[in-house]
């Protein structure tokens, strides 16, 4: 690699703390308690459902109660560790944020 190329691309050492993002890894675990929504709203010092970056939707095409979770990318501006931790059924995981080239963003 030329010296010029090396200066344009920033390579991270192995011990870099990577940025994390919240992922819905196990949606089938969701029991619909909405504690995750309450946590996000609490971080905004309010209660309610409107404007929450997480939506817990009830599946329409089933005979029983099951859930779909939608998250807005804005979620990563929140304390996502707290959101992950409050879920009683471990629906969420924190994943390393990498760009398409496998580089840390």
């Amino acid at each position, binding site marked *: 690699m030329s010296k010029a190329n090396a200066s344009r691309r920033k390579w991270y050492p192995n011990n870099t703390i990577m940025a994390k993002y919240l992922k819905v890894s196990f949606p089938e*675990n969701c*029991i*619909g*308690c*909405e*504690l995750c929504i*309450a946590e996000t*709203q*609490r971080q905004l*010092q*309010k*209660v*309610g*459902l*409107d*404007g929450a970056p997480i*939506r*817990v*939707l*009830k599946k*329409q095409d*089933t*005979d*029983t*109660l099951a859930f779909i979770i*939608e998250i807005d990318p804005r979620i990563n501006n929140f304390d996502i560790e707290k959101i992950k931790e*409050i879920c*009683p*059924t471990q629906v969420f995981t924190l994943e390393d944020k990498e760009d398409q080239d496998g580089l840390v963003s």
Partner: protein
Amino acid sequence: MASLAKNVLYVDLGRKTFDVKSDTDLHKYVGGVGVGIKLLADNFDRDPVIFSIGPLNGYFPYCSKTSIVANDNGVIEDIYIGGSLSSRLKFAGFDSIVVYGRASSPLTLDITDEEVAFKEVDAKLGSLGLPGKRSVLSYDQEERTYFLDKYFSPPEKILEKKLLDKNLYNLVITGTKTFPVKRADKYGEIYKKLLGQTGLLTVEKDRHPSCVGCPMGCNRSKTGEIGGNVLTHSLVACTYAEKIFSDIGVVFSCLNVLGYDYTHEDIENFPELIKKVLEGLG
């Protein structure tokens, strides 16, 4: 300070009209079964079915029940249903809904915040309200019971008798309001403390659909409750969290951080107040 008035939605099924009233006299009845019984007494001749929530619904863990009060052939019944209904009522801005009269034909009631629409019984329920912000209470012809969100059901067929008699087959409630939390740090502290007290609950952790605000996913909340502790059910907390919400100190802390001006004495004495209202009903 939190509002001293209770917001009550009155729905006349016979005339297909509705009205929202703000009532400060109901403040001393706290909420849930307390407010429900007072509203029943005030509207006794209308034979109403009264859905009520308490001051802690939507704010604290395990406060996930909706109280339903009705006169069942001379017996004043109070039943409780879990799921998401109490949170949707809170975020629609109501403390109580008083349903009275009889519709001329079976119908669906579609409530979004202060707007009420009277729809045909065969209205597509999934198209009403807003996804993620609604609760759907609907009558299942095969099971001969009401289900909330296809899962939670009321106990002992009392609601079935009362609502079918009024020709109310479906009730969809959507709540889109948010409320600021003023003492956020203290509120968060109490919330976290309560959430950590699952060991005081009388149910085991499981993976069933849970009531909103409860991490337990227990197998008991599928069917609602009947009767029980007046204070717990005025708040309206789950009966399985009675050890937490029959503690006056805990209750006072929760109410205080939300800005309610109830004193310890108010909380201690109000079951007696309810008793007097019941005695007045004979």
